[in-house]
């Protein structure tokens, strides 16, 4: 018998309960993922608070391709390929800012905020050669829901709202952590790890690793916070598939809908000084809403393929190569009156405590992922198991599975979508 494993198509490497280790290590599969997933579906590019004014822009990537997200004079959002139509130079190298448009540094072709080619220096050489109207920056379809901005290279893909589907309810719930105010981006950590992007994709719905990998963080927080994150044996803590590869993992189910508050839950004593400070300018109801939301919502909403709305922050992955991934942990806070600045200051401290390259949580995650990438080079045909909880899953009225928060239901949902997209011709 010859081993046909290496001839198998990527889609055949994914089963309901396992995937092949080769999914993390095969450069050919990675190239197909870029083309068939990242350049076909909706990819998260920004939160609207990052583009507050006319002329605001942000540089980011869709898959491996550099893009600029802009807000034009009329308030419309655009995602533009960051590549000059003349000879290909990037037209913007600032991470974010305010601009009237973008002028290529090489021969000074200039583009408007919507990508329209506005000017070509010494244009006589182009007379009878090009039509300026044909040479706008390449524009990606851009749509947003609940302040979350997504872009796609595929002009024929379903509308964003259809793609999000049942995840929209959870996006709405996530935004309630503003305590009645909108949320806004406060800052971001960026870090990289030497591993495949799907290791991160899995991790945002991996409740199982939490008490093991994050023992160091758990040991350092106050007892009430540690208790809040002790979901391992809480039967109410569940993960539910939402369709299209999305899933929601409810670690702290009593905080799934922050508006549902019967007033009996005591506020964490660590926030007593903050309560006193806020009470100087805000009424008690408002203060309670803000304090109950200090750790964000009680769930991770995992949106296939590149963003997780994780409790109190956004986790955004960027595939670099088959064995390198860059990740952003974007801290969010409350876009409210000056009195709530103290809330944001405290939220920044909570974020720093766990997240980022020197947090008490992230480096331990990264160590685990590094080990997965290294280990998975052994026996690339051997299965990576994603079967935890398969026998205790229940099916909801929506026809989708629910299981305990430590189960691998969310990974199965993501890989099912992966398989579907990688099978499309």
């Amino acid at each position, binding site marked *: 018998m010859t081993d046909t494993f290496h001839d198998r198509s990527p889609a055949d490497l994914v089963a309901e309960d396992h995937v092949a280790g080769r999914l993390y290590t095969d450069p050919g599969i990675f190239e197909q993922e870029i083309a068939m997933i990242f350049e076909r579906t909706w990819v998260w590019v920004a939160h609207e608070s990052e583009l507050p004014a006319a002329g605001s822009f942000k540089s980011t990537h869709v898959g491996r391709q550099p893009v600029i997200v802009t807000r034009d004079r009329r308030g419309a959002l655009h995602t533009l390929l960051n590549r000059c139509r003349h000879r290909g130079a990037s037209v913007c190298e600032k991470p974010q800012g305010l601009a009237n448009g973008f002028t290529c540094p090489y021969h000074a072709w200039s583009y408007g905020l919507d990508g329209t080619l506005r000017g070509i220096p010494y244009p006589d050489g182009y007379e009878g050669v090009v039509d300026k109207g044909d040479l706008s920056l390449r524009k990606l379809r851009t749509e947003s829901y609940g302040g979350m901005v997504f872009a796609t290279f595929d002009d024929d893909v379903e509308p964003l709202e259809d793609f999000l589907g049942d995840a929209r309810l959870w996006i709405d719930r996530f935004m309630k952590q503003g305590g009645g105010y909108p949320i806004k981006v406060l*800052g971001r950590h960026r870090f990289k790890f030497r591993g495949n992007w799907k290791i991160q994709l899995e991790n945002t719905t991996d409740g199982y690793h939490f008490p093991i990998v994050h023992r160091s963080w758990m040991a350092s927080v106050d007892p009430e916070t540690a208790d809040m994150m002790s979901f391992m044996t809480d039967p109410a803590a569940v993960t539910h598939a939402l369709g299209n590869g999305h899933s929601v993992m409810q670690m702290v189910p009593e905080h799934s809908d922050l508006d549902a508050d019967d007033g009996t839950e005591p506020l964490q004593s660590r926030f007593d000084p903050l309560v006193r400070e806020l009470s100087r300018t805000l009424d008690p109801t408002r203060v309670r809403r803000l304090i109950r939301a200090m750790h964000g919502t009680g769930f991770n909403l995992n949106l296939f393929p590149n963003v997780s709305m994780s409790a109190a922050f956004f986790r955004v992955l960027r595939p670099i190569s088959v064995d390198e991934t*860059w990740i952003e942990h974007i801290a969010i806070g409350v876009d409210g009156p000056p009195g709530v600045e103290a809330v944001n*200051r405290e939220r920044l401290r909570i974020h720093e405590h766990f997240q980022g390259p020197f947090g008490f949580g992230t480096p331990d995650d990264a160590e*685990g992922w590094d080990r997965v990438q290294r280990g998975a080079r052994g026996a690339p045909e051997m299965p990576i198991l994603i079967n935890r909880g398969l026998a205790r899953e229940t099916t909801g009225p929506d026809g989708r599975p629910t299981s305990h928060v430590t189960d691998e239901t969310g990974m199965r949902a993501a890989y099912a979508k992966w398989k579907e997209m990688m099978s499309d011709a």
Partner: protein
Amino acid sequence: MPERTDAPAPIPMTDPRVTRAVELVWREAELLDRKDYVTWNELFTDDGLYVIPVDPTGDDFADTLNMVYDDARMRRMRVTRMTEGYAIAAVDAARTVRTVSRFVPQSASDEEVVLRSAQILIAYKRGNHDIWAGEVLHRIRLSPEGPGGDRITRKVVRLVDSEEAVPAAGFLL
């Protein structure tokens, strides 16, 4: 506002107060490479701050996101994390070697020296060498009892790539 970089009259490196400060910075660097975090933490005053900001230009650390923003309490917890054996990143941390040089004394009095420097650190782990380069600021309180009592009241490490993706670290800068 960033700390001033255009001090009017240069302070000579031979100023004995500056020499004391440099010696403390070098002692600190060696403790960190040796991962002797308990002894390292003793170099800070109780109101000492240890900061690795994301934004390399500002010093409004409280109202912005930092990689590290440690007062005494956070620093104590961090030392526990680095030494107690639960943190898998610290248990399997990279080996580091760092040099601190290109000192620029910003101010020197009998009570305090403020010193800027450049730090180049190589972290080696599992076949990879990562470079961590940054501008460092030390604010050092000189003890009337002599150099053994000198303490750090503020240390800020501004990485050249602090706004870009850096590896997740199992050691300290």
